[in-house]
């Protein structure tokens, strides 16, 4: 256990807009929150951090009226209140933007903002003109160039995020809860959102900001509260504490930086995967590289640069139009992922819920999915063996679940990601493609996943790493390819490049340094 970080700040003297005192909440099998204090002052951004399963979302759902606490009380302007549902909380000025956007993509911006409470005119019909007018004024503070009549599904994710915030604010919110607002945004989009948050703060709103990105937290917040295992660890002024101290509080042990510098590693000379001139119309063009045994090849680039599309073609999910692939020196053409799996490849998709896991099934069944041959004999499944192997991975990867029989849907994001990792580790792959392996994963799990990848590489597994987090790419990769608009625009050896340079190439302004990422046009 590490020494505590700088002493937590004393209770503020300004009256908080909302304060939660001694909150406790249990679900069957889980003590989700225990004695948690939390408050938000007018005109501050208060960040809430903690590992997956630390209780952040539960606490926010209590503040937003979704759950009722078992113990403790909530004060609004110093007066105790009880929220029976979200509407009560909204009436008290507490509005939440959930991690998963709750917009109806087929409807217009205005219809989304006023969902369920559209202004009505004569005969009880929706007064469209008035609704659009009010939507325009609701969006005005965000300087967002969209028409209220635009269909939400056609907007970029950042714009959708802002529509969602406008919707949350349109109920005259005084406290705005943002749960992982940047998890699907590009750098530029994140910048724009940050500016929006600052202007809201300056207007006197209290903002609760939940994020796994400590860098963002330190950039935007005034105070930081840490939860660990459902318990309150303390609240600090952001300018009085360091990133390391916060991480130590979150994980409960002294902690090296998650993505340290690149540590040179020896890797093999045998080619594991060789790609020549691989192209697929509209997605990527003329991709060539050689990946050696035990080497980690990082693919850097912005969202929409074609990295995931390339990965899908490598794994046989789509067919390239041109170019060749060779696995361990043998020419291959995968007509389906089945062929790729048979050739010793594994693929951890970025879309773990929709395309990676079987959420309604148990851990053991998930791990068995790509390993049906391994866990069967004479055409019959050996479920006991699958359970044993899954238990081994549960211990090794420290997957937090009640048992291997628990359904994956009940696990936190980081633990789900570890299950996905276990699925593919069990296939004993010789080549592993990992796409955003630590997205939506907390720092503790992130470091563990990094270590697993490094271990695999040291055992000779060749790894293609796709990540939007440059520190991660730079920390792990023995070689880095930067992609821009479907093409490789730069190649570096591990450790010979810095973040700014990669970012410049990724943004298509190769070589020349760029200020922030403001010049980048979103290509998605």
């Amino acid at each position, binding site marked *: 256990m590490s020494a505590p970080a700088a002493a937590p700040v004393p209770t503020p003297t300004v009256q908080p807009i909302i304060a939660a005192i001694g909150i406790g909440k249990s679900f069957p*099998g889980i003590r989700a929150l225990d004695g948690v204090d939390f408050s938000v002052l007018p005109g501050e951004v208060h960040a809430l951090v903690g590992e997956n399963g630390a209780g952040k979302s539960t606490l926010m759902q209590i503040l937003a009226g979704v759950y009722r606490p078992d113990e403790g009380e909530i004060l609004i302007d110093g007066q105790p209140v009880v929220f029976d549902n979200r509407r009560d909380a909204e009436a008290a000025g507490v509005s939440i933007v959930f991690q998963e956007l709750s917009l109806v993509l087929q409807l217009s911006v205005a219809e989304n903002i006023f969902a369920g409470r559209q202004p009505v005119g004569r005969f009880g019909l929706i007064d469209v003109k008035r609704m659009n007018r009010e939507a325009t004024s609701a969006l005005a503070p965000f300087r967002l160039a969209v028409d209220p009549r635009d269909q939400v599904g056609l907007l970029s994710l950042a714009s959708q995020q802002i529509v969602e915030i406008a919707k949350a604010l349109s109920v005259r919110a005084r406290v705005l809860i943002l749960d992982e607002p940047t998890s699907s945004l590009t750098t530029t989009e994140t910048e724009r959102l940050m500016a929006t948050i600052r202007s809201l703060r300056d207007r006197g709103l209290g903002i609760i900001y939940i994020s796994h990105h400590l860098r963002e937290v330190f950039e935007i917040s005034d105070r930081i509260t840490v939860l660990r295992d459902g318990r309150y660890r303390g609240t600090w002024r952001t300018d009085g504490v360091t990133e390391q101290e916060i991480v130590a509080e979150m994980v409960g042990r002294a902690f090296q930086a998650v993505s340290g510098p690149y540590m040179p590693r020896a890797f093999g000379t045998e080619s594991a995967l060789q790609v020549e001139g691989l192209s697929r119309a509209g997605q990527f063009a003329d991709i060539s590289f050689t990946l050696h045994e035990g080497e980690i090849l990082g693919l850097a680039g912005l969202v929409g640069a074609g990295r995931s599309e390339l990965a899908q073609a490598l794994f046989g999910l789509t067919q390239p139009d041109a170019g060749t692939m060779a696995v361990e020196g043998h020419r291959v053409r995968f007509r389906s992922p089945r062929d790729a799996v048979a050739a010793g490849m594994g693929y951890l998709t970025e879309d773990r819920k929709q395309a*990676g896991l079987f959420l309604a099934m148990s851990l053991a069944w998930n791990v068995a999915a790509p390993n*049906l041959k391994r866990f069967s004999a004479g055409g019959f499944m050996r479920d006991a063996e699958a359970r044993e192997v899954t238990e081994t991975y549960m211990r090794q990867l420290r997957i937090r679940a009640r048992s291997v029989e628990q359904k994956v849907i009940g696990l936190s994001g980081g633990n789900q990601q570890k299950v996905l990792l276990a699925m593919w580790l069990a296939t004993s792959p010789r080549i592993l493609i990992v796409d955003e392996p630590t997205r939506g994963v907390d720092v503790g799990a992130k470091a563990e996943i990094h270590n697993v990848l490094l271990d695999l590489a040291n055992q000779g597994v060749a790894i293609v790493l796709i990540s939007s987090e440059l520190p991660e790419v730079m920390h792990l990769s023995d070689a880095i390819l930067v992609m821009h608009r479907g093409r490789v625009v730069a190649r570096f050896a591990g450790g010979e490049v810095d973040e700014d340079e990669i970012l410049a190439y990724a943004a298509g302004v190769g070589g020349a340094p760029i200020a922030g990422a403001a010049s980048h046009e979103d290509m998605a």
Partner: protein
Amino acid sequence: MTDLTVPQSTTARRGPLWLVLRKLLEVRELTTLLFLILVSVFIALRSPYFLTPDNLKAIVLGMSTTGIMAVGMTVLLVAGGFDLSVGSVLALGGALAGWLIVAGLPIPLAVLIGILVGPAIGLANGLLVTKVGINPLITTLGMMSIVRGAVLLIGGGFGISNLPQEFNNLGQTVILGFQSPIWVMVVLAIVGDVLLRRSRPLRQAYYVGGNERSARLSGIPVDRVKIWAFILTSTVAALAGVLTAARFGSASVTAGTGVELSVIAAVVIGGASLAGGEGTVLGAILGVLLLQVIQSALTLLDVPLYWQPISIGGVLILAVGLDAISRRVRHLDGRA
């Protein structure tokens, strides 16, 4: 590393009885079985005839056609598909076999062709769904109509009657007191249940139905699994058709009309989900039995015939509704 211990389960604190009860409720077949027992006790108290061997035999024989088809339909629902054309395929299997026999073909060959029409139609359904991409509802709705038309073309308006006794023996032979279709159902149900639970090929159906995209990325041949499930479903439907024709000594052109709905209803009552990824053959057979028992009860209790469809629909909605509620409770429980 000790700070990440898994919290104690509160269910454990509620004592072993609660735990056992919960485990039992999670086994869906037991819910169906419980339901079946309750209904049976109720009927037995009202009608002394219900529990007689003759009536029980009649119930089992009555469920055999639906039961045979339910084995295939379960696999298909588990794989995330479903098939409305089974009723028409049943009629075609019988009509084709009968027509060929009347035309002078040797009986074994006619029977074989009658059964083989099943896999042919199943293959067509499977290819249309997977390769062309038409959804199963539309594909099999269209196939239902096409196949029924083919039956009418072969059988004319009246079907094919006066089939030879040699053929009829297939559906009328009594072995150990039970008529042959019952034995076919029992064997298929046992084999089907074991294979669906334990065998590797059929395990794939759960993954395909559970999450098609994840299954594909896991290297499971999604299209092939679905096509085979359609083939299996149609094959047992055609087999049921041949047996039905033999049992009655004639192939009716209206045989199996509407049976697709009772088959799907029974499979769903037995625990399968239209969303795929769940279900067992044992559960489906219990579902078929439950529907048959209710039908028998309505007859014994002199309830007008028209109440049958109403009661089948009611039981379907009740069973699936109860399951949806218990699922919601369990889902809340599974939350971390």
